[in-house]
């Protein structure tokens, strides 16, 4: 008797663990989308091999689109997760900061000439300059948040408002075009490799952050600061510095995403580049089941969340939803997801299930 009860509770326990795992919701959403596509149009999963206009072997198909276009989002989600964890707020300036980083890259590469014949500087130099600039802007946000105690969303509203203007100002409102095909590698394909480069860059970022989480105290420190700043301080941590650090890391992510973005088109459009990407990045964090009020986080869940969003976008495109109407559909999905994962709703259903079980037992 007692034994059977034990078995029951343990199996229920493992179910519960699965349900409680942070990755459950984003993975379930991903599966749901996959099943939907499988039923409605299995060609979604077809991957074809061909040659692009430059004569390079490339893979194409919806799945490739997702891992390709989701790369920037996944990279941003990494930084956004850390910022959310440590400061309990979100950075809404990442889109504008990508515009700045992209603009800096182009400015360094072109040296003020809008249509350069050759590059004025090596790409790596341009990228490093962009990294430094983006990290400085990250530090600016971080200092406002950590030392001036301004809520992150509001502090980053400053850069959100000014960012695209600053980006335009850097290049004197010109739209430089890079003709060197090498520059397009980062957002497209490297000759001979059929998988899009952004995916490799995103994987590299994930590996770096994975190693950082494993071999440093990044997780413990950011979580402690996010959960209880005062206590973290009395345990010898410097909460302000750690918050600034997360914003600087996000700045680095922004620079990487900026490189991919400008490389994709070999140019820039200040008002369109990475538009609304901050909202997607925050959604990725939320979809990953991370509390937007900070504290504990799951990096994997955030990254999967980013790909869920991209998967949704690609699916909608595939069914002919125009780009401008996309947000409406996204909104519906987001609302469904947050309602399902809302604690009050979950509680309600669990009590409902309990009651039904009780009735079943009585019967």
């Amino acid at each position, binding site marked *: 008797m007692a034994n059977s009860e034990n078995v029951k509770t343990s199996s229920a326990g493992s179910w519960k663990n699965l349900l409680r795992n942070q990755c459950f919701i984003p993975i379930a959403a991903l599966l749901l989308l996959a099943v939907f596509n499988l039923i409605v149009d299995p060609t979604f999963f077809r991957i074809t091999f061909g040659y692009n206009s430059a004569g390079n072997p490339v893979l194409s198909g919806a799945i490739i689109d997702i891992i390709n276009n989701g790369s920037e989002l996944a990279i941003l989600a990494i930084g956004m997760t850390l910022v959310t964890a440590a400061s309990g707020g979100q950075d809404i300036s990442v889109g504008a900061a990508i515009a700045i980083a992209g603009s800096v890259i182009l400015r360094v590469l072109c040296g003020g000439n809008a249509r350069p014949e050759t590059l004025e500087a090596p790409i790596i130099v341009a990228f490093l300059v962009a990294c430094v600039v983006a990290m400085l802007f990250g530090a600016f946000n971080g200092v406002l948040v950590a030392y001036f105690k301004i809520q992150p969303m509001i502090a980053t509203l400053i850069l959100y408002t000014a960012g695209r203007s600053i980006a335009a100002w850097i290049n004197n409102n010109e739209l430089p075009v890079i003709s060197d095909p090498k520059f397009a590698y980062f957002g497209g394909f490297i000759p001979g490799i059929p998988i899009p480069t952004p995916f490799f860059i995103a994987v590299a970022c994930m590996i770096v952050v994975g190693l950082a989480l494993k*071999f440093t105290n990044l997780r*413990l*420190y950011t*979580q402690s600061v996010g959960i209880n700043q005062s*206590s973290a301080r009395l*345990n*010898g941590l*410097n909460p302000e510095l750690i918050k600034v650090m997360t914003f600087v890391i996000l700045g680095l992510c922004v620079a990487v995403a900026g490189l991919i973005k400008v490389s994709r088109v070999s140019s820039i459009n200040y008002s369109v580049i990475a538009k609304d990407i901050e909202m997607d990045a925050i959604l990725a964090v939320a979809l990953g089941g991370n509390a937007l009020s900070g504290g504990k986080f799951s990096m994997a869940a955030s990254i999967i969340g980013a790909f869920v969003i991209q998967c949704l976008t690609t699916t909608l495109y595939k069914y002919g939803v125009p780009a401008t109407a996309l947000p409406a559909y996204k909104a519906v999905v987001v609302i469904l997801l947050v309602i399902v994962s809302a604690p009050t709703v979950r509680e309600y259903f669990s009590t409902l299930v309990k009651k039904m079980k009780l009735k079943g037992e009585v019967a």
Partner: protein
Amino acid sequence: MEDNIVLKMRNIHKIFPGVRALQGVDFTLRKGEIHALMGENGAGKSTLIKVLTGVYGKEEGDIFLDGTEGPVAIHSPQDAQNMGISTVYQEITLCPNLTVAENMFIGRTKGTVQNWKKMNADTDRILQSLEVPARAAQQLGTCSLAVQQMIAIARAVDMECKVLILDEPTSSLDEQEVEKLFKLMRDLRAKGVGIIFVTHFLEQVYEVCDRITVMRDGKLVGEYEIENLPRVQLVSKMLGKEVDDLSDIKGEVKTFDAGKDAVPVLEAEGLVSNAGIKPFDFHINKGEVNGFTGLLGSGRSECVRAIFGADRVTGGKVKMKGKDVKIAKPLDAMKNGIAYLPEDRKVDGIVGDLSVRDNIILAQQVLKGFFKPFSKAEANKVADEYIKLLNIKTASKDTPIKSLSGGNQQKVIVARWLFTHPEYLILDEPTRGIDVGTKVDIQKLVLKLASEGMSVTFISSELDEMIRTCSRLIVMRDRKAVGELTGDELNQSTIMNTIAGGDK
């Protein structure tokens, strides 16, 4: 319902996920009595009160109120207020951004339009009659905590209630203010109000209460007339066993011999911080237990915070084992072998959502450095070791610390600092708001650590606890050290006199 009964709770059940918080509890409150609700932490006092005030729903049971036929339904604090139940909670439940007057009247006025002039005038009148030093138009956040608590009490009292619940209202009040509160309680009793009084201070219970209800582990132990329940019996009922632990500990006390071979561990000279204390000198020897005492707000916490670098140190010299050191921030202190268990466990101590394991290793991990994390196996080993050593009651080491009871949370924090193997351990109110059993455990631990050569500073609001554990007491008054007591001077009356400044 009998004539003189104002409130009756019958067979109350309340279940939280995984815990049966209340199991068939009965409670009866009569008109014009002060009724103490006693029990250890986790006994269910707060839960019972929150059920009564509509903060929590209940699974089973009925509540009867004087003047209403049949059981009443209380779904929200608003319902409770409307039925004449007003409450003052331990943590201040007022809004710091509103003015004092707004806090006094919000949530209980009729009509849609507010008459601020009348409200401000009424508030000033009430505050004056209670001698609370605050103005009606002042923003609440600019008042001291004690004043805020008095305003909360004034609000509750002004509500013409039948039942007044005071849930540990005295923890932020000084002695004069407690006296004021007691006078108020007696006045209300004379007017026929039933008062439920929850407190951890036994003296206060015996000073004002008429009747005691004791709870333990979510169950009712019994209801007693105060005359029929001596202190020792009350404690034993709360603990559920005959305690001789409390008398035991006295036997273990070894007064520290400050002889010639005393080695100073820490010496501070003219230390002062930005928290508003006067410069003070301080030293502690190897294996010594000393304490800071004084009323709340006398600066005793601020002193130890200055030693640990928790507040910004603005002047003074510190020597560790004879060598000059600079302690500007907590990390400096930790590197010099100082550990500090802060006064406010919830705000400064625990990292709520992190596991018990992470909470234990946190401080040592920070000392070790950003690039040298403990492996999972090491961390688990350490956690197991300290959970066993301090007898921490937790479901597992992965349990978030916030789901532990207060006493066990405190033990985890103690474990955290013991794991840093400090030479000098500061315990600021380690026993506040925790159950008697854990209190005794912690006192014993302090004496054991000292006998092993650790220096300990122990701060507590309860004098007898200090007398039992410390061999030297520094007395604080008005943010200044006013005396140092050792040996025979360590008795209640001498300490009280020094605190009160009776020597002048």
